[in-house]
């Protein structure tokens, strides 16, 4: 019975782009530790040890060389184990709630993995189900996937996952981004922390980096933003920072954003925190510059997107972005480009990892799980939906693909579903560059969660 919701898309998009910014930008930016893979490092042979499948299918041992697991895929042979049936629920086709790229990217990743190692040696079949942004269709998807006996359910953007049904059917659920409050305490795991961890990073940076005693928050008053703002206030309370609030509407003009910035600055805070996204990024950045406000501003990585930066230019000096980091080339970038070229139907080299839109969520989720599955296989455990879920709950030292935050599922007792708690923070430098702030490469949020 639910119609399309035009408000929810805004908060959904905000959450999602935040995750993408946090993951893709930082992932493809690792200056790191990794070398470009040049030699085959994997052998796939039928052998008694190694990956054990759950059925009588041929057993496969995938011997992984001690290389960076996130860059190893080009060298992996096609998987030969028992096919792994994975359900994928995503919201599409409803005006305002239409994110087909998430599913397409995930399926594209599956196609790639089926040529390069699969899920810990098992080929993948993605059984997609489209939810239409209503609880009814999400529930229908749950029933459909349960009936098809999938062994794992991944959610792209699903507003109303039917956790109870999945739990009853003993099918583990792994999502990429919690959206609604219920997601934080559900019987599921989320690879990123959504709003809760973002605001924790903001409070951590406000206290430890900006040494702020007073913060002014600028936020929209829609339901999604209100939830985030309440969480931010709680995080600032945890950090012992005083805060004031200025709320604006969902559909402000640029002039309206200017008014918000002026009002926020009038309380003379040490730091401004803007929770606006989309048009709000441009409006608030321009508004601050027009009023010549010098107080630094912390916001989300949504506002460091290429479109925003190219529109506002040096007006963004003084702005920092949670979830953004310096963009550099890395081996993962080549994988990403090869993987997504058939999906986007463009030349691989033209794919910009920071301009993937919401589709990147599907890629991050599926590729990260493939990395984890390979590690699980390495440990000699059979890769199944349940074992992968269990492994994710307890494993240490895993990172989101490509080179994102460390996985620490359950590190916060209050948010048992969340699996990652660190963010990089970058700042705008005159001339159009966004660069990681030294010392804020991985801001820990656990101690500042609301």
């Amino acid at each position: 019975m639910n119609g399309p919701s035009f408000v929810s898309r805004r908060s959904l998009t905000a959450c999602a782009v935040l995750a993408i910014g946090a993951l893709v930008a930082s992932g493809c930016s690792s200056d790191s530790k990794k070398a470009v893979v040049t030699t085959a490092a994997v052998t796939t042979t039928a052998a008694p040890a190694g990956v054990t499948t759950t059925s009588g299918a041929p057993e496969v041992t995938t011997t992984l060389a001690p290389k960076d697991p996130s860059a190893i895929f080009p060298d992996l042979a096609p998987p030969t184990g028992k096919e792994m049936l994975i359900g994928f629920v995503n919201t599409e086709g409803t005006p305002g709630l239409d994110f087909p790229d998430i599913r397409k990217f995930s399926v594209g990743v599956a196609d790639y993995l089926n040529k390069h190692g699969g899920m810990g040696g098992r080929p993948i079949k993605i059984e997609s189900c489209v939810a239409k942004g209503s609880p009814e269709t999400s529930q229908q998807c749950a029933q459909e996937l349960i009936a098809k006996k999938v062994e794992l359910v991944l959610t792209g953007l699903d507003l109303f996952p039917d956790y109870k049904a999945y739990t009853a059917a003993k099918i583990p659920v792994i999502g990429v981004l919690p959206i609604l409050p219920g997601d934080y305490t559900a019987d599921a795991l989320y690879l990123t922390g959504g709003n809760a961890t973002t605001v924790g990073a903001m409070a951590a940076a406000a206290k430890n980096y900006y040494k702020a005693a007073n913060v002014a928050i600028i936020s929209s008053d829609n339901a999604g933003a209100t939830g985030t703002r309440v969480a931010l206030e709680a995080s600032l309370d945890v950090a012992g920072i005083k805060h004031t609030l200025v709320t604006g509407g969902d559909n402000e003009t640029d002039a309206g954003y200017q008014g918000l910035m002026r009002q926020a600055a009038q309380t003379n805070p040490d730091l401004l925190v803007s929770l606006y996204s989309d048009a709000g990024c441009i409006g608030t950045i321009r508004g601050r510059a027009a009023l010549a406000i010098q107080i630094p501003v912390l916001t989300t990585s949504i506002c460091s997107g290429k479109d925003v930066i190219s529109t506002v230019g040096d007006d963004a000096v003084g702005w920092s972005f949670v979830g953004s980091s310096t963009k550099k080339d890395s081996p993962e970038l080549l994988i990403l480009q090869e993987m997504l070229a058939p999906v986007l139907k463009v030349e691989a080299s033209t794919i910009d990892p920071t301009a993937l839109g919401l589709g990147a969520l599907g890629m991050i989720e599926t590729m990260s799980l493939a990395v984890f599955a390979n590690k699980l296989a390495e440990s000699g455990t059979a890769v199944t939906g349940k074992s992968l879920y269990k492994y994710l709950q307890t494993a240490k030292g895993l990172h989101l693909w490509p080179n994102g935050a460390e996985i620490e599922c359950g590190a916060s007792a209050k948010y048992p579903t969340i699996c990652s708690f660190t963010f990089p923070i970058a700042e705008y430098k005159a001339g159009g560059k966004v660069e990681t702030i030294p010392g804020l490469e991985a801001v820990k949020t656990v101690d500042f969660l609301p």
Partner: protein
Amino acid sequence: MTDYLFYLLLGSGAGAIMAAFGLGLVLTYQGSGVVNFAFGGMAMWNAYVYADLRTGSYPFPIPGLPGRYHFGHDVGFRWAMSLSLLTAVVVGLLVYLLVFRPLRNAPALAKVVASIGLVIVFTSLVDRRFADKITIRVKPTLPRRPVTIAKGLTIPRDGLWLAVIVIAIGAVLWAISRFTRIGLVTRAAAEKEKGAVLLGFSPDMLAGLTFVVASLLGGLIAILAAPMIQLSSGVFTFGYLIPALGAALIGKFRNIWPTVITGMAIGMVQSTFTKLQVDVSWFPKYGAREGIPFLIIIVAMVVLGERLPDRGAVAGWKLPAVPQSKVTVATVVLPAGLAVVGLLALGPLWRGAIMTSAIAAVLALSLVVLTGFGGQTSLAQMAFAGIAGFGLSKLAMNWDIPFPIAPILAALIATLFGVLVGVPALRVRGTNLAIVTLSGGVAISEFIFKNPQYVGDASTGGAKIPNPKLGGWDLGLVLGTKSSRPIFGIFLVAVALVLALTVANIRRSATGRRMLAIRSNERAASAIGLDVAQVKMLVFALSSFIAGIGGCLIAYRFSTVSDVSYGTVASLTALAVAYLGGITSVSGAVTSGIVAASGIAFFATSRVIGSLGAWEAFIGGVLLIFTAIQNPEGIAGAFRLQAAQAKLKKEQKQLKLSQASLAETSVA
């Protein structure tokens, strides 16, 4: 003081958009009697066309055609503006000729439903044609350089320019309305179409003309305003349209200047909230921006109600006939029995569809009582359902109130809100009431559904709902390892059946007859001693109670409640679905349940022909419009008509046969 002036002037741009949209709504209404809820959607499409032209292409709105024609370069301001405005003309004309002209003599509610279909069509068009980049920042058109009016009063110029343009357009429209023949005729037609005919003008032509002019106005303002905001599929569709409806309402859907002034005022006053929220300690923490203007509109309408000249006649809010209520085995036992058999025999997907249909039927029943029997209108039914859903969560989770007391109490809370929103019905009717209730729904969403204290947040896990339990009997959908228990579906069907029988009995009772009397003619009903106010309040109370029960059923089904389920658009969709099924009868409500999104018919269709893919929402919108045109009295009404015609044919045939045999006998 300078500070407040600063914020007032900052709001001039937003106010200008609201005022212009209000003008467009007034124009359309004056010429055609249609309150076009799709006005913002039409304007949005034109703004997207302009934005696309500035990047070198023109989007085609028809599925199957190539997505766009590529010019290869920015066509420049003049060409982009000209082509976009031409598009606005074509869109206005087509919308009138293909949608509202065929509905000229249909009930006003059919027009509301068609305009909701149009909203879906335009929004899904944008979603499809701009799938890769739905949020667009358009290059500036109006001068942006800040202007210093006084010390400390420097503001961007573009908002002021837009305000001046809208005021100028308002002045031109006012002058045309007052001093030209076409203006006189349009005003005459708005009062009575025959007046226009006598003056030698075709009402059809006038209606088409006003649709075109309004579309042109909306398109122009959306294009000029686009650089100040960021284009997205919702921003014009509802973001600015709902305040514009309020402005048009204050302008009584015919006065230019009150509409312009109210629209401007809403935008400017909203802007001052930025300062007020800091200066005034008691300023509401949640929902003030969108909520307060609507509370003012509701209060204003209650106060102004008696002075509205079109009282009781606005839009000729004609409603379909109310059939007799027959409770028979075929109408009650059969559908309920089939539903139960389906729940027990079919798989979980079919079971889910039956559950959706049962809940949708309950929500439609609430509209049958309100609109079908009571002749009142509410565009806030889902808000009442939401109140009950969140109330149930509080009652059951925080205070451990057991089933069935908790859902009944929750529905009673919804009833209170229903009565509150219904108070304006004592003073306003028809289209005006529809918009006032829409405002009421928005106010509820803003003040309650945004407040984490009521709806929960991340730290509370949202608003959770326990399984319904009667004694030791768990009626929940999921229990243990069972993920889709038929017992929950049977529970839903039982509740729907009880409510359907109750509504059918109301129709046959003295109370129902009183409702119908007031629906037919309030003054006549009052003259024979009926307490019109009391009956109207009863109608709102009953309707919101049933909607509240529907909200509780939704909550029980999903074990959690979210504001997303109960928004303004959900209310409009609920009305559209109820209307399609047939809003004047219990059988219509059942039909609504069957045809509701994700209901039995929907599910069966998807099984037979599969998903319609990316264009599904667009096709759904087109079908909604088509059905509103073809069956203005709903699907159940069409079936009734068919059945009546078949019966008549049969009787005529029998009569002919008996006449023939009589003739044969007499010849013999």
